[in-house]
């Protein structure tokens, strides 16, 4: 292992190693850059010229195909589609991120506890997960959305609550193998408490697979949100997500195809990029490939 003097000074962490490998993966870099750009544009949409108001109507204009003034065209009410896609992206990405964070927080804690304590605790905790798993989850989400208010917060909760199950399983599996490591026993022999061992010694070692799974959860959640919105159970008007935009456009797809095309394209591209990035991260973080 050759390290330059400068690098050796602070030590090459495994994270830095992974970052170096990720940068060499062209697809991942392109995807990451695209996502970054998308993130900036959607984040700044309210202050960017031309897309600040997605609800500005121009009834006289009506639906027009893409033009110089309206790159993505306009919808039936004459609203600029680019602005609507940008603002819809805010909702879609927010749902994806927040629901993933919810599943991350719940799943990692739950799975790590189950795996670390093992035995009967683990058995009960995982049977509970199995029971939830066996429920038709989309049905569950739809039920939640119908029963409670169809607010965006409810959407976060509903999607996150479903996603944490897989996360918990993954983390538990990882923890089961990692807790066999001698450094965990060494930490115990030094009098370190359970909490510190779980969160300082065990969980950081599972972060690789967790991050990979999280990057793959974001697109899955976004897709589910689009699906729910398509069914009219997701984001409610006047708010719009990519899913509702596609839905709106689908009704008039024979006349104004661009109304579905652009938000659909935005969604598809984002999902592609997240998956590529997830793949790249998996390759970069996989310890078995760490032989260069």
């Amino acid at each position: 292992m050759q390290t330059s003097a400068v690098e050796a000074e602070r030590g090459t962490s495994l994270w830095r190693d992974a970052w170096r490998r990720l940068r060499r993966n062209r697809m991942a870099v392109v995807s990451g850059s695209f996502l970054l750009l998308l993130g900036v544009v959607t984040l700044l949409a309210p202050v960017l010229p031309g897309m600040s108001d997605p609800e500005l109507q121009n009834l006289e204009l009506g639906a027009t195909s893409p033009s110089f003034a309206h790159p993505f065209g306009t919808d039936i009410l004459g609203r600029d589609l680019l602005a609507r896609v940008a603002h819809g992206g805010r909702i879609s990405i927010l749902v994806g991120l927040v629901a993933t964070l919810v599943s991350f927080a719940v799943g990692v804690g739950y799975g790590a506890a189950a795996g670390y304590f093992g035995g009967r605790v683990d058995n009960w905790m995982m049977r509970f997960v199995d029971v939830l798993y066996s429920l038709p989850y989309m049905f569950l989400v739809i039920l939640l959305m119908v029963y409670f208010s169809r607010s965006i917060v409810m959407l976060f909760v509903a999607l996150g609550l479903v996603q944490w199950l897989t996360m918990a399983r993954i983390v538990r599996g990882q923890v089961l193998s990692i807790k066999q490591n001698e450094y965990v026993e060494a930490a115990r022999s030094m009098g370190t408490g359970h909490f510190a061992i779980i969160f300082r010694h065990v969980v950081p070692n599972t972060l690789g697979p967790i991050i990979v799974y999280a990057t793959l959860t974001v697109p899955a959640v976004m897709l589910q949100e689009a699906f729910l919105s398509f069914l009219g159970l997701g984001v409610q008007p006047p708010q719009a997500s990519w899913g509702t935009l596609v839905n709106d456009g689908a009704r008039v797809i024979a006349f104004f195809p661009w109304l579905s095309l652009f938000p659909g394209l935005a969604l598809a591209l984002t999902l592609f990029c997240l998956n590529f990035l997830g793949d790249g991260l998996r390759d970069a973080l996989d310890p078995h490939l760490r032989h260069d």
Partner: protein
Amino acid sequence: MQNPLFGNDTMGTVMQATADETGGIRVLEVEDLHTIFDTEDGVVRAVDGLSFVLRQGRTLGLVGESGSGKSVANLSILRLVPQPPGRIVSGRIRFGGMDLLALPESKMRAIRGKRISMIFQDPMTSLNPYLRVGRQLTEVLEQHERMGRSAARARAIDMLARVGIPEPAVRFDGYPHEMSGGMRQRVMIAMALLCKPEILIADEPTTALDVTVQAQILDLMRDLRQEYGTAVVLITHDLGIVAGTADEVAVMYAGRIVEQAPTAELFANPRHPYTLALLRSLPRLTGERDRLVPIPGRPPRLIDPASGCPFVPRCAHAQDVCRREYPAGRNVGPAHDVHCWVDVTG
């Protein structure tokens, strides 16, 4: 650390008086320890009536084949036996006026790493690859000494220097994978000694290292033992290491100590057939060259052991009584005890 209950005051029985010819304050007394594992095939009696005494500043070599229970015995002392499937069923471990087996887990945690610490076999895997070396050291100090960051850092770097790590301040910020096996074992030793423990348990500390590095590590442990007055339990299967390092040797077989004596005495005058067989299976550099004699058979299954001495199937001197009953300890020399019905001499 003077122990009012079990310290120096051991003039009571003859047995203890003899044992005390080796002198020294008793820091740890293990009495009739039984540790079992519940497995699908039955109950494995990994430690089956183990007793020994550890004295301040001394090194006790615990020798035995794989599966003789030496590691489990020491995990039991720190109550680190994985539970389930493991279970300490009976016995007493006296330390600092307490019975470690009766302590609540929180008190036990305060002892681990502070008053009794442990070094493991494989230095390549005993350090967390994701944490900087220094963080793993300061963690121990924050835990036990309530030290601030910078004080802990200074103490840890000082400790790294003491165990012979060059450029300790640089290594402090490095990661384990940048170090060789010998260096990592030095780090482990530094970590174990950070809080100046009374007892250091070293579980095959040099098995995973090159022979040259082995010698360095053993030297280091000897120096530090003298400097800190730490008592050491050295677990090993290598009689060579014991000969050069330990003051006393206890030979383990099937979860029990079969023979115990000061090191020189044990090598000069082994009295248990198993010890004899072990010594005969060792190559020597001096004297006549005999053929090495391997010990026939295999270590016994520890599931449902037959009554009597577990060494019987492999023993050349076995008699009827050996199959019936396990022999009590016999004193055969100064501080030399053996558990055998037969009077064997090398």
